[in-house]
């Protein structure tokens, strides 16, 4: 076993508050407010901005020295009031930081006190997320934020009758408020391992099965990088509050990534929407699982387009099996992406001697045989010396250079290669893309 270290060397982790910001960026008309000092929000904006090549609207309560003595409770109240007055967002998303968690600022009572003083602000929802650094990485902050959005905007119904009614209505009449009443609604909860284009691909697959997808959060319309977006201090694109209110009417919830399981369970437990979790969408088995579930749910045959894509993937697997077989690949990623890519590689005959997760929360759920452990990029550098390929975010470049190994970028941040937010690595077509990216990186 490796020696215990008391530091992170070349961290692959991002802060949970960054993950929280990311989830908030998928909600239309939202203004995100970080309760912390100014640097906290500046670093997050820079990090997300250099990955997505997009402006990142994120505000801060700008805590300073005196807050260390008196706490940041008043600053938080002022901050929420100020952003509501100045920017008129439809919804405000507030996340705590390591600093305010250490003070122990009670965000709930600050909000209640603000509402007491200014009752007119009650009409605009405020979502509070506790995202202290020690809960893990980006993924944990994102997960908590999705849960906080659900519990704030779709609170648990007070009686069982309400919730079963909400669901029955949808099952019988389909979606009441959607554009096409005959199209049943499906709730999708993507993890933060999916790119905006992955989410677009998912929506397309749902549409092929005659479903109307509502995605929470929907980065495919906010962080996908399109120029029609009006530059603005609040989130443009993303899931609307109206769409979120429709989620209890969904015929099913699909959650993607181990970390999103809880979000799917929330809707099932409180609104009786059947929940299916897909830990991965990359690889033949993973995609088959999604497609077969959809076929079963909709009682429809698999659309010809998807069958054809599957056949194309099979052909690729046959053509390149020899180049993939026995290749040793070292990965360091957030757990959901690590799970997806590792299982997809092992499925085609590659070997994964090194699998380093950014945080510990889901690694117990990995299939046996994957040597997954929590680790930073300094460990990647120590362990990947005999492998053929490194898969990690752009910060893995130091390890790759030191070991003189090819480096396929994945995860976040990727700032030194073009087009990562636009990459599709899910579904049959996306799996094929992923395998080509692996092969082409190996060939360099």
């Amino acid at each position, binding site marked *: 076993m490796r020696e215990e270290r*008391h*530091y*992170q*060397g*070349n*961290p692959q*982790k*991002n*802060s949970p*508050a*960054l993950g929280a910001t990311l989830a908030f960026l998928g909600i239309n008309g939202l203004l995100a*407010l970080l309760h912390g*000092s*100014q*640097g*906290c929000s*500046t*670093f997050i*904006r*820079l*990090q997300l*901005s*250099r990955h*997505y*090549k997009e*402006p990142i*609207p994120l*505000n*801060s*309560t*700008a*805590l*300073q*020295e005196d*807050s*260390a003595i008196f706490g940041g409770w008043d600053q*938080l109240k*002022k*901050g*929420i009031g*100020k*952003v509501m007055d*100045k*920017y008129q967002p439809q919804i405000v998303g507030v996340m705590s*930081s*390591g*600093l305010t968690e*250490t*003070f122990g600022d009670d965000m709930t009572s600050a909000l209640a006190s603000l509402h007491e003083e200014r009752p007119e602000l009650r009409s605009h929802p405020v979502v509070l997320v506790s995202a*202290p*650094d*020690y809960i893990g990485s980006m993924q944990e902050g994102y997960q908590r934020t999705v849960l906080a959005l659900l519990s704030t905007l779709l609170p648990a119904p007070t009686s069982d009758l309400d919730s079963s009614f909400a669901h029955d209505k949808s099952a019988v009449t389909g979606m009441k408020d959607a554009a096409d009443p005959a199209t049943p609604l499906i709730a999708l909860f993507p993890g933060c391992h999916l790119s905006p284009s992955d989410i677009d691909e998912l929506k397309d697959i749902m549409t092929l099965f005659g479903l109307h997808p509502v995605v929470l959060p929907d980065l495919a*319309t906010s962080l996908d990088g399109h*120029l*029609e*977006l009006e*530059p*603005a*201090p609040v989130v443009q694109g993303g899931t609307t509050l109206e769409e979120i209110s429709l989620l209890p009417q969904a015929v099913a919830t699909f959650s993607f990534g181990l970390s999103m399981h809880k979000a799917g369970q929330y809707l099932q437990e409180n609104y009786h929407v059947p929940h299916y979790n897909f830990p991965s969408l990359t690889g033949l088995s993973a995609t088959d699982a999604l497609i077969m579930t959809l076929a079963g749910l909709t009682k429809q045959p698999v659309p010809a387009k998807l069958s054809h894509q599957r056949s194309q993937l099979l052909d690729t697997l046959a053509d390149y099996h020899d180049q993939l077989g026995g290749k040793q690949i070292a990965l360091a990623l957030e757990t959901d992406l690590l799970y997806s890519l590792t299982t997809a590689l092992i499925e085609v005959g590659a070997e994964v001697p090194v699998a380093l997760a950014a945080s510990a929360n889901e690694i117990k759920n990995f299939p046996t045989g994957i040597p997954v452990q929590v680790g930073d990029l300094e460990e990647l550098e120590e362990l990947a010396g005999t492998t053929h390929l490194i898969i990690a975010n752009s910060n893995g470049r*130091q390890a790759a250079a030191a070991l003189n190994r090819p480096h396929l970028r994945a995860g976040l941040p990727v700032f030194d290669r073009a087009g990562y937010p636009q990459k599709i690595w899910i579904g049959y077509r996306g799996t094929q893309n992923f395998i080509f990216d692996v092969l082409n990186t190996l060939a360099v």
Partner: protein
Amino acid sequence: MFVNLSKLDLKETCSSADKGAPKLCLRALPGEGAERSCAFDGARVVLMPITDAAHLVHSPIACAGNSWDNRGARSSGSQLFRRGFTTDLKEQDIIYGGEKKLFQAILEIAAKHRPQAIFVYSSCVAALIGDDLEKTCARAQEQLTIPVIPVNAPGFLGDKNIGNRIAGDVLANRVIGTKDPEAPKVPLSINLIGEYNIAGDLWGVLPDLQNLGIRLQSAITGDARFADVQSAHRASLNVLVCSKSLTNLVRTMERRWQIPYINASFYGIRDTSQALQDIAAALGDPALIERTKFYIKKREAVIRQAIAQYRERLEGKTAILFTGGVKTWSMVSTLAELGINILAGGTQNSTPEDFLRMKELMDPTAQIIEDTSSAGFLDIIATKKPDLIVAGGKTKYLAHKTRTPFLDINHGRKLPYAGYEGMITFAQAVDRTVFSPVWELLARPFPSLEATR
């Protein structure tokens, strides 16, 4: 406010009542949307370019995890400075204190990475839980043969500027003069203070210094080895190149080691020539002064010719300027060199002196950007409709949404713009973005995409 920082010459910077002036001594308001970063960021900007040192951040993951290796400071030697080290403080550390962990981390990093020194940065959380950085670093240093230097600039102390100053104090008190303290001054030698070798800026200036026979004692801290900075006290002159944020450092060096200082900018032809002349004059060597006169004429002619084709195309174009530090004002004359008029200028991270100088240099009709939030920035673009936006990476993608040519002049850039050669690179970069064929493509009419979305 800032009571414990009064020794850092802050009072003088609080006088400006001008609209749009950086509010250095006013606190940022919660929810205001200003983008001013924190004291920790300011300290790391100054110290982290020291290439053969390890930089350990004593904090939860947010401070280093989101920011390590994200600046374009370049090194001709060791790459150790690019590594991200953090104690990654967890719940247990917050309850029981993080000193033990920090102590172990310092020893482990020293053993594994063999740095020439370790800088240990405090953070909001470390300060709040009362970890004694000074004592822990001293204890660790006892077991090592290298300096372990505490940098006490937790983010909540204030803006980036405060952190710059604290880092300057650290350099003055813990680094400079610690090697050969009694050694004599090196004749015709200078320190470039506040030159971080972003995108290799320093390397664009060095050849001209060498050609003139001026010796670079150290750059503080671009492409600097720790030992270079230690012997910075041997320079005959300090040249302060990046804003006034390290004024405290040059003043201390003047008092302690009798090194006079001048301000200079190496952005643009005029400023570069002025800088070389000022350096020569301050060094006081008659032959050098004479040499420099001829040299700058020759170089100016060469560079002006090289950029003539760009100036011809760019003459009369308009720009909005939004940056910090020395670039606040030096970009005004650099853009003027290309015939570009500035319609509006603003700043967030510079000192009031830099701001006033920008105001002085700009055409009186140019507007000062008062609301420095994203919203204010967008308003200005919408009203002024400039041909070019010159700003930092934070505003880059926002600017692109307005379909306006954009030039990143801050730490995210890939190209060196300093010195004479940098002016050519700068002119080419401006030309490339202003005349890129994509702006015409972006403006083409097309049926709205709304229907298909």
